[in-house]
């Protein structure tokens, strides 16, 4: 409960409730004041109207006419609402529905208030009455008034109603406020509990949804989506860290061992220089691995997204293929390249080049005989790049794993490589809103070969022709 008092939801509800209660009470007070006044004024107006009627009669027909009229009025009344009394100069009643001249208090000149008692056919309790008094000719007196018991009863009933209304409003408002606050609090509490568990390290926790689809449900769903992504990233990060630690420890240990042995051998100058050169080469390989990791991380983080520009992927593919053509030729492989004349995509030139280099390099590396075919074509809104080789291929169940960092299949350990090539290809695909997958190049045949399919969205628009490298522009004029 104390925690509830400190919450924002409660403060909000309490503030809202206070405002609500104040406005309801103000409204009721206004109703009370305006009606109370109204009933009093109405009473006096009725008495005054009655007096005017009686005065006319008195002017015209004298005391007897007045007495007749009063008797007629009294006879016509269902209940004793209007009070009349005529007395002589010694206050002996002559006519009217009061038994005696009342012992009254003067309210203001001409107006008195006095108690009235219950009579046999009148079940009402004792109350008070308001009356106007006049002295007529010869000392006769006239009293015209109204029994206020109805008014009082109405007033008290009305006050009661007002009181109960106020009370009910406050109670309902308070209960409603508490209820809704607690409802909100329960949802927030549930989220907090989950968050606390996650902070303590249990990352499998998720915020429960109640299926209502309200904003709390949406918030919970979003929180869960965030958690899911964080968990995936964390798992990836842990995997990478472990792999890096593992894969970089081996070359580092080798490097250290080589230096140690060199030191033990006390070699001559030539041998020492040789060992130093080997060490530098080993360190360069390590640095290359680090750079490859960094490029993947950059692509995955979308750090280069702002450098995306319109590039001609066909031209990139052709120029990378040209770079690798002699390698294929040296190995005796048939390397074919087919591209549309121009394929405009929104992309990062360097990363797209690197993607093609990695795929072509893999194909050339693992194919000992036959063909490597590179095709780049636009198909509708997609650009499709295929690199198919006639190498041994990859078993279907390993085709996803090879995209992970540092994964190298058995049998490829003897070939140079760091196991990061395909990881970068996938990161490049993701950065460009595309996809990459592996398949058999020649299904059902042996060897089945491997076909890498890289797709990314095509771009509309045209390309300015690309200038040759700056260094070669400086030709003699």
């Amino acid at each position, binding site marked *: 409960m104390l925690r509830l008092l400190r919450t924002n939801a409660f403060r909000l509800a309490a503030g809202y409730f206070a405002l609500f209660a104040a406005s309801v009470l103000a409204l009721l007070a206004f109703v009370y004041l305006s009606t109370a006044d109204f009933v009093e004024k109405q009473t006096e107006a009725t008495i005054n109207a009655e007096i005017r009627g009686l005065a006319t009669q008195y002017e015209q027909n004298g005391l007897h006419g007045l007495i007749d009229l009063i008797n007629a009025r009294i006879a016509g009344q269902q209940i004793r609402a209007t009070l009349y009394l005529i007395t002589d100069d010694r206050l002996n009643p002559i006519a009217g529905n009061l038994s005696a001249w009342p012992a009254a208090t003067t309210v203001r000149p001409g107006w008195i208030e006095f108690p009235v008692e219950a009579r046999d056919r009148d079940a009402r309790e004792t109350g008070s009455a308001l009356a106007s008094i006049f002295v007529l000719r010869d000392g006769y007196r006239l009293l015209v008034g109204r029994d206020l018991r109805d008014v009082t009863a109405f007033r008290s009933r009305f006050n009661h109603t007002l009181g109960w209304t106020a009370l009910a409003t406050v109670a309902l408002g308070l209960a409603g406020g508490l209820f809704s606050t607690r409802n909100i609090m329960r949802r927030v509490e549930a989220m907090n509990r989950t968050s606390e568990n996650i902070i303590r390290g249990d990352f499998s926790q998720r915020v429960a949804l109640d299926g209502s689809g309200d904003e709390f449900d949406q918030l919970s769903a979003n929180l869960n989506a965030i958690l899911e992504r964080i968990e995936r990233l964390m798992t990836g990060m842990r995997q990478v860290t472990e792999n890096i630690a593992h894969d970089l420890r081996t070359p580092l240990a080798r490097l250290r061992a080589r230096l140690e042995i060199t030191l033990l051998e006390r070699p001559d100058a030539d041998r020492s220089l040789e060992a130093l050169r080997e060490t*530098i080469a080993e360190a360069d390989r390590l640095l290359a691995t680090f750079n490859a990791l960094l*490029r993947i991380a950059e692509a995955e983080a979308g750090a280069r997204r702002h450098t995306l520009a319109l590039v001609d992927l066909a031209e990139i593919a052709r120029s*990378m293929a040209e770079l690798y053509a*002699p*390698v294929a030729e040296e190995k005796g492989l048939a390397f074919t390249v087919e591209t549309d004349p121009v394929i405009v995509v929104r992309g990062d030139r360097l990363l797209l080049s690197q993607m093609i280099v990695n795929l072509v390099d893999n194909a050339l*590396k693992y194919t000992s005989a036959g063909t490597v075919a590179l095709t780049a074509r636009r198909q509708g809104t997609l650009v499709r790049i295929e690199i198919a080789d006639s190498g041994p291929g990859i078993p279907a169940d390993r085709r996803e794993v090879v995209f992970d960092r540092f994964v190298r299949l058995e049998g490829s350990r003897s070939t140079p490589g760091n196991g990061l090539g395909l990881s970068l290809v996938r990161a490049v695909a993701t950065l460009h809103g595309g996809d990459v997958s592996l398949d058999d190049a020649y299904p059902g045949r042996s060897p089945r070969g491997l076909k890498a399919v890289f797709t990314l969205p095509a771009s509309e628009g045209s390309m300015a022709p690309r200038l040759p*490298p*700056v260094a*070669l522009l400086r030709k*003699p004029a």
Partner: protein
Amino acid sequence: MRILVVEDDAEAAAYLVKGLTESGHSVDLAAEGRSGLDRARRGTYDAMIIDRMLPGLDGLSIIHALREARNQTPVLVLSALGEVDDRVKGLLAGGDDYVVKPFALNELLARLAALTRRGNAETRLVVADLEMDLLSRKVTRAGREVELLPRELRLLEYLMRNAGHVVTRTMMLEKVWDSHVDPQTNVIDVHVGRLRQKIDKGFARPLLHTVRGAGYTLRPE
């Protein structure tokens, strides 16, 4: 050569000064951006090596200020991998260069040498008995014409323009293929091997030499 090094990292600076001095250059060092710009303005240098991230004034601002003042001293920018963006490339489009940290001294020295050799307006390149006519794009060795593919021609031109100096594989990839990719296999070696076949095969004295741990060089012997 007189070289100004503007680098705030003491270890990297020491490495650079040592390496450049050992290679026969005389080196001035500034460890901060503003003093670097001051020195660059006052001194006359053959080349400058400027770190991109510097306290006081960053490397690109220094270069910008120098170029505004019509100081055309070649600049080699040292940059972290993630910092090589369009701004760097745009600023260096005039023919200057950049090296990504951590760098190999060989690479840096080779690029520095290439930077300070520019703007020669010959129509013929000659290395011993190897000649290239830049207008007709014809190559002869000892008077006999050598048939080259367009890319081989560009590769040879680049080697000949830097004759006597080491050219690294990365430099060739960047300047001849205009690409900053990381070739997984040593694809450049294959290209150089083919070029070597065409220009050196059948001659007693090879011109194209491999420099271990660095790259290649084209020189008369």
